[in-house]
């Protein structure tokens, strides 16, 4: 700093220029910022530089903002009101009743499908009545990287829509639509999977379930222990725009332990 060419004190206009250019150090910036609020003349100097220099951007191309930034911003600024969340939970309670009533049959079907479709896991103890005609689960070749120890089943009265396997050790979940079924039309909406925290806090999104075939989803830490259940809601294509369920809750399941 021994070679400063300009030893005179800068006038307000030059301080304002350095403020706009972001060239003041932290203390100088804080001082200028405070002064700006109290000193109209100084505030005008800053606005004048902002107006002079902004024209440097006249030829700057606009760039498409990546999808998701807008949704995250709106979810942050406008979280759903508590009564919206309460209404969503009430809807969920209805579905919980249906799901529990059907649970034994659902488990049997789910395990049967597990054995047939997804070589995910070899449970240490069978959960429920697996029909004797199906191949034994232990005979399914295991995938070393993914060993499911929990599953969740989402079904209508007519058919199984999704089976979700979870392997807490690898931190992964797999969701499949059985057979060649198509669960929904992805160009019209998305089916989003939610974890319902046992402590009653807001549902947490686990991702979009596949419309057909299978998908791998990341598994947040604590997903099994902290969950009182899982739910699927119908959302716009791409998923909930708010970070919380916005559409009707169509399916619900607890986690079933496989081991």
């Amino acid at each position: 700093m021994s070679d400063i060419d300009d030893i005179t004190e800068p006038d307000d206009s030059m301080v304002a220029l350095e403020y706009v250019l972001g060239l003041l150090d932290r203390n100088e910036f804080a001082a200028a910022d405070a002064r700006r609020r109290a000193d109209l003349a100084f505030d005008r100097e800053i606005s004048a530089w902002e107006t002079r220099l902004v024209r440097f951007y006249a030829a700057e191309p606009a760039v498409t903002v990546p999808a998701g930034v807008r949704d995250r911003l709106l979810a942050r600024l406008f979280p759903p009101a508590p009564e919206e969340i309460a209404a969503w939970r009430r809807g969920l309670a209805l579905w919980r009743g249906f799901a529990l009533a059907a649970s034994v049959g659902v488990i049997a079907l789910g395990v049967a499908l597990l054995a047939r479709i997804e070589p995910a896991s070899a449970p240490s103890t069978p959960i429920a009545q697996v029909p004797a005609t199906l191949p034994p689960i232990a005979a399914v070749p295991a995938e070393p990287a993914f060993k499911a120890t929990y599953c969740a089943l989402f079904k209508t009265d007519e058919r199984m829509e999704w089976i979700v396997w979870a392997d807490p050790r690898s931190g992964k979940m797999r969701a499949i639509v059985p057979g060649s079924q198509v669960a929904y039309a992805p160009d019209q909406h998305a089916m989003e999977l939610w974890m319902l925290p046992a402590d009653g806090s807001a549902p947490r999104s686990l991702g979009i379930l596949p419309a057909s075939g299978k998908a791998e989803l990341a598994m947040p830490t604590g997903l099994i222990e902290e969950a009182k259940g899982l739910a699927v809601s119908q959302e716009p294509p791409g998923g909930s725009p708010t970070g919380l369920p916005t559409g009707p809750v169509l399916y619900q399941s607890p986690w079933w332990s496989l081991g």
Partner: protein
Amino acid sequence: MSTEIEADADQLADWLARCALGDRRAFERLYDATSRRLYGILLRLMKRRDWAEEALQEAYVKIWQNADQYRADRGQPLTWLISIARYRALDMLRRDKGEDSLDERREAGFEEVDEVSVERMQGLSSLAETRDLVRCLEDIQLEQRNCLILAYCEGYSHSELSETLSRPVGTIKSWIRRAGQVLKDCLEGLA
């Protein structure tokens, strides 16, 4: 700014006024109308997309929270929006990203100093509304003009300019002030 944006200034001011009253829909329209411009500017300043996205989101949070502070007598609404985004980006570059900021930005795509300046001048020369700005910039000594452009458009700090141009920080400070004074005097003379 482009003619299109100037024609929209009243609309932007109206949306900002509605934002100040808590109108979410007005905010969404404001975002849809301006976010591409702000993102382009933030990418120019920060180079890294993840940083620019973060700054963009922070900027719009501030825009929503401070919409009542927009004053029409201080400038165009878009200028106010751009200023908020720039200050947020500069704050991130100087304070959050720290010493490695310049290296990170270089890796993400800094162009050669001379190219930046030449391209900027060519871009501005092609527009009718910046004719007076270009004329005044041409009055500034080349090295000093480069410093001003790199600081404003590319987010260089004094020390980053010093390192890049191999000149002492004091010289850089002096150059920028001189460039600013010439530009200000020239533009006021033409007004």
